[in-house]
């Protein structure tokens, strides 16, 4: 049997006495989109930080394509093909849109300082290929962004910044894409647009696995095939959107016990 794209076993991290992620078993396959939901502070972003190597787990395993990647530095994990976006949008604000996406291609480019000084042609060729690919990616999301590719990232509105961040993540041809609340702070129209974008990504890269943290249940319903619910760092439910939306424990986690029974 082919190994899962990504699988965690009893993944745990403790900050002092608090188990921010507690014993979580999780998996995602190629071509699958999994929604990760839960109330604020339930450990979703921490879970992402564990997967990308920013935090080191206290216990448990992360298997990526059959290989245990626990303890690898973040840049090695990124090089292996796990790309992410950030909750608060971490673009390189003083660089142009194009440069932001180009940095995303870092692990696919190989020119060194020596090439930079003595072998200009190699560098130019590499940039040429990179720029073309990045413009193609930007154009896929919005032609306007591709035309404005020399704008400073800081001058972009929020919705465009998220697009650029997704482009930056995709530029590395990742096998697994982690999206951390991509619709946060977006208007309903922009959220619609975002869902279209995510679908576009999946049409183009059918093998890519996506894990999506989202508070907007519309987005989860539209995009995710399977949903995992975290609460206080624990996995409390897993299933299709329909299944978890009627799950007692999930409603309780979101609404509290009394309100849940009152609603019922």
């Amino acid at each position, binding site marked *: 049997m082919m190994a899962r794209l990504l699988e965690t076993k009893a993944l745990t991290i403790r900050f002092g006495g608090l188990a921010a992620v507690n014993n979580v078993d999780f998996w995602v396959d190629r071509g699958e989109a999994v929604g990760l939901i839960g109330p604020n502070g339930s450990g979703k972003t921490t879970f992402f930080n564990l997967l990308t190597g*920013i935090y080191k787990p206290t216990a448990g395993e992360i298997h990526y394509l059959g290989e245990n990647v626990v303890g690898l530095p973040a840049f090695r994990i990124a090089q292996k093909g796990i790309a992410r976006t950030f909750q608060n949008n971490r673009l390189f604000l003083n660089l142009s849109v194009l*440069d932001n996406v180009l940095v995303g291609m870092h692990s696919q480019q190989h020119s060194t300082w020596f090439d930079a000084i003595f072998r200009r042609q190699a560098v130019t060729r590499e940039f040429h290929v990179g720029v073309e690919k990045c413009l193609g990616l930007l154009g896929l999301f919005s032609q306007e962004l591709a035309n404005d590719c020399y704008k400073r990232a800081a001058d972009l509105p929020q919705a465009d910044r998220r697009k650029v961040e997704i482009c930056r993540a995709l530029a590395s041809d990742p096998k697994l894409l982690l999206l951390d609340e991509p619709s946060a702070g977006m208007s309903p129209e922009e959220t619609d647009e975002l869902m279209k974008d995510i679908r576009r990504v999946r049409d183009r890269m059918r093998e890519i696995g996506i894990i999506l943290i989202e508070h907007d249940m519309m987005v989860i319903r539209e995009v995710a095939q399977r949903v995992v619910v975290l609460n206080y760092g624990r996995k409390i439910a897993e299933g299709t959107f329909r299944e978890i939306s009627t799950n007692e424990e999930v409603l309780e986690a979101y609404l509290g016990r009394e309100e849940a029974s009152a609603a019922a």
Partner: protein
Amino acid sequence: MIEPGAIGKGILVLAIEVALYLLLVVFMLANATLSIAAFLLGFIVLGILFTKWKKANQQLTTLFKEMRGLAVAGFVVLLLTLPFAFSKSPYLIHICVMAGLYAILALGLNFQLGSTNVVNFATAASYGIGAYTSALLAVHFHVSFWLGLVISGCVASLFGLILGIPCMKTKDYYLSLVTIAFGLIVYVLLINFSWTGGPNGVPNIPPPSLLGHSFREPIRLLGFVLPGQSNFFYLTVALVAGALLVAHRLHQSRVGLTWNAIREDEIAARCQGIDVTWYKILAFCIDAFFGGVTGTVYAHYIGFISPENFAFIVSVVVVTMVILGGMDNVFGVIIGAVLLTVLPEKFRAFEDFRLLMYGIVVVAMLMFRPQGLFPQKLRAYRISIPR
């Protein structure tokens, strides 16, 4: 093909350059503090006018862009004639040499401070290590200056690596503290080792020679006699040009882009697969190489070095130059270095307030124009946007 009007534009470009050049020469030759101050005021007014008067600014920029080749050629020719203009006053040529040396130091530091936001206060250390390496090699083993130039660059790089590794365990202010400590350690060791000459330093360092011409001899050319300093002037100009080329190429490459990404957001950079540690150490090594080369030229130029030449204050001055000139703008950094070398020399009367001036410059720049006089430009790639 020459377009109609191109000749006129060319003459205009050259005329502007010559006018600025003459102003600069007269400024350098002026001696009375009052006239120097008047000139300086004039330059500042000119600068402000240039930035405020948008239309003239744009027209001039496009003019110089169109005539780029000619403008650069004119600039180089004028620069090379500076020793002729100052042939009667070797001291002015000395100032120019020092400005060039500081420019190389600042270009080196710019990889860290400007590109990567690693605030390194150990420039003086690599500068000193380079100077002592080649000086000791020359005095004890008669190693030639040219070989010493490369060796001391490499030795300084090695020390840059040694400094870089502990620095990677720290961040921000703490990293700066480690570099300050390293600079002090090198300084104290230079004083205390007996084989470095201790506080007395290394005297009698031989000048370089090229094709049998010693660099301490005056240059005789077309009936002109240029003082011995002009040898070093031309050497420094060549080295600055080399350093500029290397710096420009690095900034316009994947390496430069990666450094910028680290400066902007280290965590995001790591998540793009960037080995932050390696790229920071690379910046340390390249900076140290520049420092080592500069130190070599300084040692063989002055002929005598002592630990005092490589004290902490030198590092501070170089940091100030980068902040003034412009973070990650190679031309800006050179201008910053030239300004901060020439101005204190012209205001010798206020020698006691020199440090105060550096302080004021840093505070004023960080408050009113943190990106420096000439901020970094966005990279442009020569590729058309597909529509």
